[in-house]
């Protein structure tokens, strides 16, 4: 075997080996892009400013749909989601935002959301809008919600039945993964890191 061929074989072998090693160390396949969910929407944030898909660009988003009068699953999910966000290093935290979308615009006004969400963290973004805007955004994210009948004389205590997924969005605002509200915190953190 001449020297040149030997060298080429060695280089090729090293190259092949490095490819295989890279494949071995790959922690998981890349999160697929969910093309069925998401899209255009027009809402209002907790400061009464218009908020659209362009405002989701540049950061990862942890998005959750609910209503503030929900006493059990919604605050628990919000607290756990913010908890995961707080576990990130500070440079990572700056690249991830938590977004709470209310489908109860009648009670969840921007001012109300601002005060409510500050309890969890002042950086949490709260979105609301007209009934039509909320319905349209929920539809594009595949969120189902329904206002339940309140008991007679207690109309102000109405509740919603609703789906309760947490959405992980990438820097382009594309849906990359859905988590159940009782998600595993470790799994969520790993998926966030894979997109950073």
């Amino acid at each position, binding site marked *: 075997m001449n020297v040149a061929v030997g060298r080429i074989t060695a280089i090729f072998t090293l190259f092949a080996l490095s490819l295989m090693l890279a494949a071995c160390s790959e922690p998981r396949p890349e999160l697929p892009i969910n093309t069925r969910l998401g899209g255009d929407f027009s809402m209002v944030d907790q400061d009464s400013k218009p908020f659209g898909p362009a405002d989701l660009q540049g950061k990862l988003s942890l998005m959750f749909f609910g209503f503030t*009068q*929900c*006493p059990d699953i919604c605050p628990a999910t919000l*607290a756990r989601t913010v908890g995961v966000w707080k576990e990130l290093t500070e440079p990572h935290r700056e690249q991830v935002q938590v977004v709470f979308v209310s489908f109860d615009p009648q009670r969840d006004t921007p001012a109300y959301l601002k005060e*409510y969400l500050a309890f969890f963290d002042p950086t949490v973004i709260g979105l609301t809008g007209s009934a039509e805007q909320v319905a349209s955004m929920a539809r594009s994210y595949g969120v189902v919600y329904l206002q339940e009948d309140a008991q007679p004389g207690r109309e102000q205590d109405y509740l919603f039945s*609703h789906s309760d997924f947490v959405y992980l969005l990438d820097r382009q605002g594309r849906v990359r993964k859905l988590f159940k509200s009782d998600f595993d915190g470790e799994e969520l953190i790993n998926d966030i890191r894979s997109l950073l």
Partner: protein
Amino acid sequence: MTFVACFKRALVAVALIFAQQAYAELVIEDAWVRAVPPNSRTTAAYFTVRNTGAEEQTIAAVRSDSAREAEIHDWVETAGRKTMVRQDQVVVPAGGQVVLQSGGLHMMMFRLDPVPSPGDKVLICVDTEAPAEAPAEGEPVAESATEVCAEATVRNP
């Protein structure tokens, strides 16, 4: 008072003593209330109700000194939607227990007044007897003889 009337009265008194013993067999343990933002109108309380007696007990009402209305709810999932459904009765089996916890059975507290802060103690009560008639708005609920109460700590989960 005739002998019969006196005897009847004695029977009622004895029955009441037994009734009180029956309700006293319910014990509330590990009670806590979810800390919520100060502008919240609702929250939930969680606890375990243990029945130390030999007879099944049925919780027919709940109340708290911090909420105008309280109910026991459970989560039901239908067609991808989760709904809270009011439970008019919750049976605590003899020698058994019922656990109220996040994502399952919980005591829903409506119209918090005042909204409790983390660290506060809140009174929660379960009653084996439904209130005869709902009190007027703002009226305190009268204490019932079949009621068991406990202090719940307000905290983050």
